[in-house]
């Protein structure tokens, strides 16, 4: 027997009516489900895996952005779970600023090797060397990543790119969809975004366009650390407290290195520090911290009075709309 019924327009639209209310109330009255309620981390994990699998099913040639930073490491971990015991069925893409922390590059290569992944590198340095990009006056290379990223997407015909962007990071990112369309120039149009309904994700697009996919959109920085702790995910060592030669600039501790040399009025000190974010070494600051374990870091982050970008990213302090402007051009 089929259980179908015919209804009139008025009846169906009045699913808003009384009988609907009764249905739901009755449905909820048998609630004995406290033991079957996902914890916050489990709910976030389930949502991320849903998105990763759905895009793997819908897209022809996706890639996953992997910098070696904590958010992209969590993304890789989730992808590993999503396809287990099969390998991750797409390559990872790194936009290399040429200003990376050496520990992070080493970590990137070890991880790619351990998981048997194919790594595609788009090099900002190559673009500077042959004149397609010019070094900025302030020396930061974060905004320079957009062109190599878009070229890599075109050259490899990637139709979808997974990123570890989180909405809690920044106010323009708070406006971002989980599956977000980019036009043929790689541009984001925040005023004209697709509605994202229920758990149904639609990455369809015209040739030349692509989608950016952010499965951990709904995670906060604390969620990331609690998850890293729970799942025991190995990270690059600079996330944990260590002694480092640093100097003070713009209210941040910058590491002494090839692209971040102290000026005469910036004395070098050895401090116990760790990194909350890893990016362009010339503009990514360390924070003073004694936290050596994931659990200690989760507690420290939960109690912090500064956002991770406010604390550690000089380039996001340029203007109220620095991230929005970069994103519109096609940045991560």
């Amino acid at each position, binding site marked *: 027997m*089929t259980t*179908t*019924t015919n*209804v009139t*327009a008025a009846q*169906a*639209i009045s*699913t*808003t*009516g009384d009988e*609907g209310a009764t*249905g*739901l109330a009755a*449905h*909820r009255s048998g*609630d004995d*489900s406290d033991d*079957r*309620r*996902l914890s*916050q981390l*489990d*709910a*976030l994990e389930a*949502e991320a895996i849903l998105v990763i*699998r*759905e895009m793997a*099913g819908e897209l022809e040639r996706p890639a996953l952005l992997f910098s070696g930073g904590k958010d992209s490491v969590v993304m890789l971990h989730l992808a590993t*779970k*999503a*396809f287990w*015991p*099969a*390998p991750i069925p797409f390559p990872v893409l790194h936009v290399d600023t040429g200003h990376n922390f050496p520990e992070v590059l080493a970590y990137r290569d070890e991880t790619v090797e351990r998981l048997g992944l194919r790594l595609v590198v788009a090099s900002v340095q190559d673009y500077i060397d042959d004149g397609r990009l010019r070094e900025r006056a302030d020396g930061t290379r974060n905004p320079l990543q957009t062109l190599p990223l878009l070229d890599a997407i075109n050259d490899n015909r990637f139709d979808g790119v997974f990123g570890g962007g989180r909405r*809690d990071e*920044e*106010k323009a990112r*708070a406006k971002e969809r989980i599956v977000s369309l980019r036009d043929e120039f790689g541009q984001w149009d*925040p005023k004209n*975004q*697709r*509605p994202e*309904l*229920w*758990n*149904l994700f*639609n*990455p*369809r697009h*015209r040739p030349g366009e692509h989608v950016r996919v952010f499965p951990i959109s*709904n995670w*906060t920085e604390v*969620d990331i650390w609690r998850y890293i702790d729970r799942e025991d995910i190995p990270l690059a060592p600079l996330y944990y407290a260590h002694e480092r030669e640093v100097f003070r600039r713009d209210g941040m501790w910058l590491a002494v290195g090839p692209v971040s040399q102290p000026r005469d009025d910036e004395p070098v000190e050895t401090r116990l520090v760790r990194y909350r974010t890893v990016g362009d070494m010339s503009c990514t600051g360390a924070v003073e911290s004694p936290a050596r374990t994931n659990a200690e870091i989760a507690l420290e982050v939960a109690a*912090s*009075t*500064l*956002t991770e970008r*406010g604390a550690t990213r000089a380039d996001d302090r340029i203007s*109220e709309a620095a991230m*929005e402007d970069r994103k519109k051009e096609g940045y991560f």
Partner: protein
Amino acid sequence: MAATLLRLATAGSVDDGKSTLVGRLLHDTKSVLSDQLAAVERVSRDRGLTAADLALLTDGLRAEREQGITIDVAYRYFATANRSFVLADCPGHVQYTRNTVTGSSTADVVVLLVDARKGVLEQTRRHLAVTALLRVPHVVVAVNKIDLVDFSQEVYERVEAEVRAVARELGVVDATTIPVSALDGDNIAERSERTPWYAGPSLLELLEALPPSDDPAHESFRLPVQLVIRPQGAARDEAHRDYRGYAGQVASGVVRVGDEVVALPSGRRTTVVGIDLGERSLDEAFAPQSVTLRLADEIDISRGDVIAAAADAPVPTQDIEAVVCWLGDAPLRPAQRLLLKHGSRTVQTAVRSLNGALDLDNLHAVPADSLSLNDIGLVTLRLAAPLPVENYSVSRRGGSFLLIDAHDGRTVAAGMVGATLPSGAPAPTEPEGDEEWEI
């Protein structure tokens, strides 16, 4: 007990103070960090304001800050000791149906703002109608700007009575009202001494106490198959060369090892022999966990199929009656061809008839020959292949779908299956009883 997640959406008319309320919730739960607050204070000062304008916390786009309005849904995060909140801040005036539908589709609770001085407006009725249509489990009506009516009990009770009457008329599942001042923080985090006549909880107390959602784990088991996991020679561990699993999110219900299940639309039955979450094996999985099922028999199941409880499986159909919220710039017209996405399956569909539209002023159905952006209507759809859709009133997951423009890929409608019609199609696509599932 680990913290739980509650998804809430806000809605309100222009100038109801919605962004201020969101800013206040973030501020009072100490979710605003000092560098964010400093930025808000700096911009507020530049604009000649004497106090920090908390609305600036949520207006993330340059155009929003310039115009002082919210253009698109923004997502915000805050937490109390026992609960974390994902907040979808939905604009009230620009594309209100589109944004309220979007926010409501995933929400456990909608917080709707009403200006105490104005009471229930036409737009309040529309928002309540959408939350009822989308079956949002809880609605909280925050009667805001109570400070501007001198904390008057009489005014509040008048608005509360209006809200109650409209909610009853529209069939809102569960509506609660609270008198608040988002600007000053009255009854937001803590109960206000300035409304001694109000005995109920503060907004935050209420949000902390609400049962998380309508509980999909109590519905019948359904799992739309997203991928077939079959590593073969690519297995990183020799032991998994012959692994074959069906990956997807449990959309509703509970599945246990040993359960008899049926694959749809083929109708083949088999038994669950294993449930994997990464390398961990589980005895049972429940909605909304993302897992991989191993089955006793190698039957033909591919992406887009649904694995359901054998005892209580939906009947696939090619004909659907549904309420759609039209989100496309070009109007919907009868006979139009579109794509329909339900679960992990996308099929072609044709609009057989447009059976009426919701008159948003009077909130009743009227005849219509097209649906424009932000219209809500009832359609009959013919599908190119049978789908195991369910009634939205039984299952929000099993009864929801997208309509997609095949040419540019845009999502043009949110659909809720109201009722399915007997298709009259040949027997293999429209079996009459359980026996016929055995092929």
